[in-house]
């Protein structure tokens, strides 16, 4: 069941991320085209529960999705044993999650 769960989780998180990525890209274009300053962006995001949920979900999905895919790549392209790869990928996912959530906290949290 392990492989099946990971396979399903990878697809599920991909489904979750598709709309999030689209919104994220549009947002980047909007911010750049509009010439918004960092302060102007932070003024919009600070204290916003909606943006916290949006990017929080994005970070969680990415932290699940990326290590599963990288695990397959490492299995196929390196001769490494399965267990060290699995451990490294758990750590990789944890790092992605920590860095991502820290960034979300910085953008939506109060004055940092």
């Amino acid at each position: 069941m392990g492989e099946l769960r990971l396979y399903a989780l990878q697809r599920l998180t991909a489904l979750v991320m598709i709309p999030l990525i689209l919104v994220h890209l549009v947002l980047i274009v909007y911010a750049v085209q509009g010439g918004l300053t960092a302060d102007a962006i932070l003024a919009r995001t600070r204290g916003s529960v909606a943006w916290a949920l949006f990017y929080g979900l994005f970070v969680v999905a990415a932290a699940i999705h990326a290590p599963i895919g990288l695990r397959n790549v490492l299995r196929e392209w390196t001769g490494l044993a399965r267990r060290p790869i699995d451990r490294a990928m758990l750590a990789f996912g944890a790092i992605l999650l920590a860095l991502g959530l820290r960034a979300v906290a910085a953008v939506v949290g109060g004055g940092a």
Partner: protein
Amino acid sequence: MAGATLEVRIWRGGDEGAFCTYEVPARANQTVLDVVTEVQRGFEPSLAYRFSCRVGVCGTCAMTVNGTPRWTCRTHVKRVAADGRLTIEPLRNMKRVKDLTCDMDAFFDKWTRVGVFEGTATRHDPPAAVEPGTPERQAVDAAVQCINCAVCHAACDVVAWDQEYLGPAALNRAWTLVNDVRVADRRGVTLRAMGAGGCHACHSHGACMEHCPVGLSPTASIAGLKRTALGVLLKGR
């Protein structure tokens, strides 16, 4: 054709070895297996290769011909060697034994690891009545004509990358068992087919389908296994 020759490079040795080149008479109707046989009879009596039926029924004579896995008995030279050059090697993804033969144990072990036919009926029971029009039986019919030639196994990149991967032939076989109403433990086959090295490792490249001499699609069978596996996850069945 008279006087024309083919330049034939043939692998000699096991995993360690080298190509030897032979000049073989070109003939109007000539399969790659004919060429290998002519080399063995005329130039190299110690050349090792396998064949049996010579007519595309047994699946014994598969080799790598100009980089592509093929049944040599069903491959005309003129179809693959327009410039008169042939390079013949054993199938990929298996240990080479000698010259053009490889050790197929790992291939057949994977085949049986995923499941063999074990029914519920005994010889005293009447033959099972299997309705041919059901979706299950049609899925079996679409996949069951495999003759274990290992061409798909040699064509598959995931097999080359991942020693544990069961491969297209074994998973195609698993799909026929999963859909066979006479099989006693269909759930067990499904669980083995979706375990480590199972259907989820497939990238759907389609090399197996592209090269299968019988025209089967192990890719479709593996996709079917993935769907069935999701059913196991969602419904617990």
